[in-house]
């Protein structure tokens, strides 16, 4: 290029860029919706993901048994199933599938696809991260955790013995046995002498052993494995023989997982406990089907990653199908002509744009490049409200922001201290000035359906000071200097406000500690923190989505707090078939936890975002799962 041409370049570029028609106007003409979707999805294989952004994409390309209602949170319109019924105890559910249900390649969607999907999700070798969502299926947990001994014994596959005889045998790993002498990550074939082997089998437990190891024990069961007192060696031998013989078998059938295809269009689900909200639960993508014929074409059921979920292989049963997928650029879907309700789908396609930066996203929206944004930064709300209020949406969302307390720390282990900290926070102020659109929380779970928790939290600095004095820190004197852990820049403002409120109301000074995301997560999971600013978004509309995580050992608890009574109430609720009594138990459980303050809820979420007025069929929904099939563009 000559020098002269180079100087003309900027002018040429500008002329090319002076577009008369905005991208939204063009998209309106073409019937394509432009959606800001925050980030690049981890994958489109619904068995491998856990996130919200993935759920939007999966929701466009797949459909669950029950669909989302565009207007009502409690609406349960038919999806892949036309109708469903349950037994008296709410533990047996039958779903009748759409006779016209088709995958986007034209193959029929059958009950076998659903059974296959749950089988794959639960397959121990696939290791689906969100697998606990389908644990309500009977025997699902045993199968997923690969409790091989229990499954074989329960199924009667071991001659002359039963689970009752053998349930005290060391099937699982023994954490007390130290494997260190065998070096890092030892493997069976590398072990040569008997002492090493014995250590290995004791530490791993029978369920995790390869056939060779089981056969090695079988040669001398009494000498090579420790059995509970009174075990008959004949029975032990029978057990070992069966386990070794089936060591590489898939035990799905024997486990009796509660999902069966009665015929091509009838799916029978059996649950381990009554789940009155099952129709609402199966709207979550973990319960969606994957196409058996396509998954198996690209690999085995247990293969963690195969190209089945990539373009152009991916096949779904939803209103749209994948058209383009470019990293950090765009994911585009267009109409699935085989969708059973295709005639009523209003859009010709959707472009999901992974715009990480919310300010860029807002700018793109305001200059006509998007129909809706994923989020509106709270410092822009005021400006938008003044200049373009017709775009602003602020809607309740099932989520809670809270401060997680490490109750294993001295001083913070005192309930009075935690209560004092809770009472000294003015949540109304936080919501008025910092978390715009959010509602001050009075408990953990936001109101959903007929569930409303007791109002526990309030702002009462007097009482807070009294409690702190009672705990031994009158006027905050001698109170240790704890730190509040944050990670996202957006959390800083509210952390500083809380810091100021505690200083003002309790004369207690804390530090704010900022860590990168990974370190922030790992500090909480290893209880290496004092207090941490956190949030939780519900997956489905039932209080259990907020309450089950506070049990002992749950990976999301991270407070060190647990209570036997709390867990009794939860399991009591789980077994309760009467919906009203069930919610009452849950309400009591929540009350019990809130009275001990392992967490200090701050506010209930609001979804703050922008939406263009020509988007019709998009209504406020608590779970924010807008069924794209119901959306129309009417400029």
């Amino acid at each position, binding site marked *: 290029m000559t020098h002269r041409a180079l100087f003309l370049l900027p002018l040429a*570029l500008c002329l090319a860029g002076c577009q008369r028609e905005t991208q939204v106007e063009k998209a309106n003409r073409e019937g394509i919706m432009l959606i800001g979707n925050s980030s690049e999805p981890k994958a489109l294989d619904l068995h491998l993901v856990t996130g919200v952004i993935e759920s939007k994409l999966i929701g466009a390309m797949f459909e669950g048994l029950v669909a989302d209602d565009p207007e009502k949170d409690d609406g349960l319109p038919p999806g892949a199933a036309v109708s469903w019924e349950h037994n008296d105890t709410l533990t047996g559910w039958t779903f009748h599938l759409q006779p016209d249900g088709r995958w986007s390649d034209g193959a029929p969607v059958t009950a076998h696809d659903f059974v296959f999907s749950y089988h794959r999700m639960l397959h121990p070798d696939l290791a689906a991260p969100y697998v606990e969502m389908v644990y309500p299926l009977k025997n699902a947990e045993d199968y997923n955790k690969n409790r091989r001994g229990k499954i074989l014994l329960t199924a009667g596959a071991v001659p002359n013995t039963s689970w009752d005889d053998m349930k005290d045998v060391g099937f699982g790993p023994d954490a007390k046995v130290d494997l260190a002498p065998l070096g*890092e990550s030892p493997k069976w074939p590398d072990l040569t002498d008997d002492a090493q082997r014995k250590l290995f089998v004791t530490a791993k437990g029978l369920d995790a052993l390869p056939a060779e190891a089981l056969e090695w024990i079988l040669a001398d069961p009494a000498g090579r494995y420790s059995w509970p007192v009174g075990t008959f060696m004949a029975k032990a031998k029978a057990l070992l023989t069966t386990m070794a013989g089936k060591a590489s078998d898939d035990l799905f059938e024997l486990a009796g997982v509660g999902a069966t295809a009665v015929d091509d269009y009838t799916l029978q689900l059996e649950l381990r406990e009554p789940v009155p909200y099952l129709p609402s639960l199966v709207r979550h993508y973990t319960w969606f089907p994957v196409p058996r014929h396509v998954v198996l074409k690209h690999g085995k059921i247990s293969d963690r990653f195969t190209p089945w979920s990539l373009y152009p292989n991916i096949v779904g049963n939803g209103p749209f199908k994948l058209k383009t997928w470019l990293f950090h650029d765009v994911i585009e879907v267009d109409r699935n002509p085989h969708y059973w309700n295709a005639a009523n789908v209003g859009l010709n396609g959707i472009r999901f744009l992974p715009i990480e930066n919310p300010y860029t996203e807002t700018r793109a929206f305001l200059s006509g490049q998007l129909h809706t944004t994923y989020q509106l930064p709270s410092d822009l709300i005021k400006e938008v409200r003044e200049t373009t209020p017709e775009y602003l949406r602020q809607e309740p969302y099932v989520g809670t922001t809270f401060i997680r307390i490490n109750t294993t720390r001295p001083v913070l282990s005192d309930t009075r201290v935690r209560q004092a900290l809770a009472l000294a926070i003015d949540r109304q102020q936080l919501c008025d000035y910092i978390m715009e659109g959010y509602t001050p929380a009075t408990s953990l779970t936001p109101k959903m359906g007929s569930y409303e928790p007791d109002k526990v939290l309030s702002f009462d600095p007097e009482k807070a000071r009294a409690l702190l004095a009672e705990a031994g820190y009158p006027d905050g004197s001698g109170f240790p200097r704890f730190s509040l852990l944050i990670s996202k820049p957006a959390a800083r403002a509210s952390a500083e406000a809380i810091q100021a409120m505690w200083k003002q109301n309790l004369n207690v000074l804390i530090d704010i500690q900022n860590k990168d995301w990974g370190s922030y*997560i790992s500090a909480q999971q290893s209880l290496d923190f004092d207090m941490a600013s956190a949030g939780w978004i519900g997956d489905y509309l039932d209080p259990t989505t907020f309450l089950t995580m506070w049990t002992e050992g749950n990976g999301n608890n991270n407070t060190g707090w647990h209570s036997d009574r709390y867990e009794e109430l939860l399991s009591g609720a789980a077994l309760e078939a009467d919906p009203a009594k069930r919610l009452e138990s849950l309400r009591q459980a929540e009350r019990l936890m809130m009275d001990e303050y392992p967490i200090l809820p701050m506010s209930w979420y609001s979804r703050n975002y922008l939406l263009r007025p020509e988007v019709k069929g998009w209504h406020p929904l608590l779970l924010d799962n807008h069924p794209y099939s119901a959306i129309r563009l009417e400029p």
Partner: protein
Amino acid sequence: MFRTLISRFLQGLLVLFVLFTVTFFLIKALPYGPFQTEKAIPDHIREKIESYYGLNESIGTQYTRQLGNLLKGDPGVSLRLEGRPVIEIISQAFPNSLQLGIVAMAVAIVIGIPLGVLAAWKKNSSLDYASMAIAMIGICIPSFVIGPLLAENFGRRLEWLPVMGWSPLSPASWVLPAITLGLGTAAYLSRLTRAGMLETLSQDFVRTARAKGVGSMSILTRHCLRGGLIPAVAYIGPAFASIISGSVVIESIFVVPGLGLHFIKAIEVGDAPVILGIVMLYGTLIIIANFATDLLGLWLNPRLRSSN
């Protein structure tokens, strides 16, 4: 000459090896891993996933495996974008980064060098002060301020250019990110050019030329430019490499699907194969750029040739 080339090549390999080793152990020293997520993954599942990707093996085994993979030319699969080959990620994103880098470099050269020459020629005039002030501003204001300012004004208010998005075939989408990215380099280039030109202009041969009655334009372009540009050229090579690798802020502001976003996201979760793949690519680029700069310097500056 040939021996210099060989020795530079071997030095480059050594640097890449050290780079790989240091990066690998830094990643392994992170207090978190790719499967430690906000919504905790159950332990039995996480162990399974980690063993699937060989993360439960000893550090030594992982190191040799990763090094072996890299030597075979395949850094493996991403753990964040699960199962996607690093090669696929790089081959999709790198052309965008490279294109953005080339346009930004062109912007930097077109703005920076004429500005520097002009400032040196009219030394201590208001033109000099003005252009150096602009350069100072260009150096001081970070791209995360310039980018949104440009987008807000030329994108949203004047509606001349798109505020975000990238299309390899639509020059309109390149303009704002390339200007934002190139401006800082342009500023440095203009200052280096000015300094180099001033030094050359004060040489004896310039005075001789003037005495012989050569016109000032001719002195500038025929006698001084080649010598005066040496410092700027020495800077261009490394600057080009850093423009390509350092565009993450611009990529985020303008949603350019380049390598920078992959890099940052991979670091956030400790996605070793992607981090290592990109680091090695950047390392190679920087080594090549430095080498090319040296060659260019030799061509521009005969004095270096004799001393070598």
